Structure formats: structure tokens, C-alpha cells
């Protein structure tokens, strides 16, 4: 047999069982590979990276990787990550959250982390549903979509995660789908190298719960749907609101320079310690 090793292997914990727990064709694995690929390309040492997650399918990701990892309580990945970053600003702090984790139970932490502009690279894997608990509606489930908890269709309007985080003041905001793998890698790289709070919304397919209610019965159909319903930020500028209805706008949504919280904190402490 030929000897070939996937480069991802050197970042996986050998004590964990593989293949991983995610369903066949789940988008989280595609995002995980992109994240590891970029970390590998940027040359970060394993000891310099801290991955923090909350609870949910995507929050299972740090369990598999051989970095410093913290599996925190539901919705609180960003609070733990803020503590880690302020205790040791030299660390590269990354949070992995799902849509339910980040904008439902952890919604407050999300907007305030963005407002404070703590240097955390946060990734929200948005599959529009609570996958781990059985496919209930989440804050990002589209209006009218049927779910386990809304068998006649969801009555609530969906949250626009990227719009929310951008309005809250994040330094960098991007949105991609897992189908657009090269774009996803570019956004992950920009997010990891950005000074200040960054957030990338990764739209991923939940084949088991989201797909079957939408009538998309395979990961291939769901990824083809992502491909056919996405428009880049550049193209979206030329489209009317009617043409944009139901479309996913992907690309860099916000990229701005703002003083980060830990820099302000370091300035203050340096000034006060001089006296």
C-alpha cells in the first residue's frame, strides 16, 4: 500500500475515535479542514493556539484537534475566550460556535465581544437548526421553514448573524458557505490575522435535520443549493433588493481598523504603573 498521509492528521488527537461523530456529508468537517489548512499555512505552533467552543454539533470540533482547547458551557465560548485573551494576549484565541450557541443562548456575549473588540477570531457554523438536540428551530431558521419544533412552518423571522455582529462593531465580518471552499479559506485567513474582533459566518448543511424538511435529501443537493443561491458582495451591489431576496451574500462584509480591547487595557496599565 502506498504511504500517503493527510496533512490534517498531524493536527488531530490520536486518542479520539475517527471517523468523527458528524453525520455523512455534514458541513462542519469541511470547515474544520479549512481552518486547519489555514493554521498550517500561517505556521502557528500548536501551543500558541487556543480553541474555545460552547455546546452543539460544531462545538465538538475542538475536541478533535491537538491545540489548547476549552469546551465551555452553552453560549459562553466568547466569555471564556475573552478571559484567555486578557490573561495572555500573546495567544491566538479562536472560538467555534453554532448558530444556536452563538446567537440564541450566547447572543448577548456575541454582541458585547464585538463591541469591546477583543482580539478573538470567532467562527459561527450556521446550519439554521439545532442539530444535536433533534432539529428544533434556531434563531436563524428561515421564516416558513418546517422544523421538528415547527411542523407547520417557522413563524419567526431569521437573525442575520453577520449584520448583527457588524452593527455591534466587529473589526472584521465575513460570510461564506462550505461549498465555496477557496473563499472560506481566504476569510478564515483574514479573520485569524485581523487585529480586533473578527467573525466569519460559515453556512453549513445539516443533512439530517435541516435538509429533510427543506426537501433537500442529500449533502450534494444541499451544497448545490448553496452554490445556486449565493452571490458575492461585489455582484450584490448591482442587484435590486427584489433580486437579492432569498440570496446568500458571501464575501468580506466589514473590514475596519478599531483599537482592540487588550491594547487599550495594556496602554492603561502601562500608564498607571509608571506613577
Amino acid at each position: 500500500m502506498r504511504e500517503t498521509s493527510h496533512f490534517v492528521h498531524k493536527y488531530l488527537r490520536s486518542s479520539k475515535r475517527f471517523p468523527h461523530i458528524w453525520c455523512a456529508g455534514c458541513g462542519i468537517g469541511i470547515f474544520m479542514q479549512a481552518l486547519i489548512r489555514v493554521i498550517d499555512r500561517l505556521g502557528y505552533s500548536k501551543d500558541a493556539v487556543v480553541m474555545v467552543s460552547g455546546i452543539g454539533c460544531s462545538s465538538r470540533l475542538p475536541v478533535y484537534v491537538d491545540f489548547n482547547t476549552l469546551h465551555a458551557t452553552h453560549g459562553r465560548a466568547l466569555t471564556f475566550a475573552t478571559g484567555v485573551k486578557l490573561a495572555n494576549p500573546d495567544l491566538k484565541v479562536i472560538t467555534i460556535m453554532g448558530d444556536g450557541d452563538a446567537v440564541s443562548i450566547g447572543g448577548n456575549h456575541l454582541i458585547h465581544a464585538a463591541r469591546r473588540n477583543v482580539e478573538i477570531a470567532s467562527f459561527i457554523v450556521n446550519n439554521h437548526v439545532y442539530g444535536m438536540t433533534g432539529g428544533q428551530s434556531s434563531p436563524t431558521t428561515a421564516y416558513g421553514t418546517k422544523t421538528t419544533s415547527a411542523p407547520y412552518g417557522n413563524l419567526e423571522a431569521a437573525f442575520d448573524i453577520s449584520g448583527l455582529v457588524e452593527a455591534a462593531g466587529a473589526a472584521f465580518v465575513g460570510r461564506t458557505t462550505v461549498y465555496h471552499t477557496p473563499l472560506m479559506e481566504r476569510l478564515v485567513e483574514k479573520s485569524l490575522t485581523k487585529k480586533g474582533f473578527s467573525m466569519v459566518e460559515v453556512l453549513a448543511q445539516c443533512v439530517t435535520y435541516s435538509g429533510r424538511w427543506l426537501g433537500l435529501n442529500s449533502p450534494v443537493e444541499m451544497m448545490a443549493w448553496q452554490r445556486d443561491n449565493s452571490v458575492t458582495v461585489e455582484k450584490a451591489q448591482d442587484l435590486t433588493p427584489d433580486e437579492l431576496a432569498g440570496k446568500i451574500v458571501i464575501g468580506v462584509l466589514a473590514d475596519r481598523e478599531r483599537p482592540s480591547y487588550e491594547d487599550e487595557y495594556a496602554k492603561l496599565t502601562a500608564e498607571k504603573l509608571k506613577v
Partner: protein
Amino acid sequence: MTRVDIYRGWCKRCGICIAFCPKHVLDADQGLFPTVTDPEQCSGCKLCEMRCPDFAIVVTKDEKGKARGKAKSGSATG
């Protein structure tokens, strides 16, 4: 020629690699596992590797690929 290795032990047969290969290099076998049916067509774009949710595909680009076409046959790797 570019080499595409598939780890059957980790593959969950989701079909993403087969469906989105721009050159239609892969096809499903009887057990629905992906198998390389047209290796000559592979451009080495690595989209199947990047889109595999289970890290079960490795594409190895043969650096000598282009040169070998002109060179004599019977190389050590062939």
C-alpha cells in the same frame, strides 16, 4: 499523473467528492464508495480533498507530471 488516494475507513459515502469534481474523475462503486475512474483527467485542483468532510481524500500532485510526458517511459514511480 496526479494521485488520488481514498481512505475507505474514514469515508462516509456522502458523495460530495463525486458530485462536485469539475473533471468527473470520480465515480461511485457498487458500495457507493468513491473510486477513481478517469485518473488522466485529474487536474489536481484538490477540490475533492478540500470538500471532504471526513479527511478521507488525499490528492498528491506529481511534480514531474508534465516532464514525464516527454521523458522516457518506465520511471521508478510508474
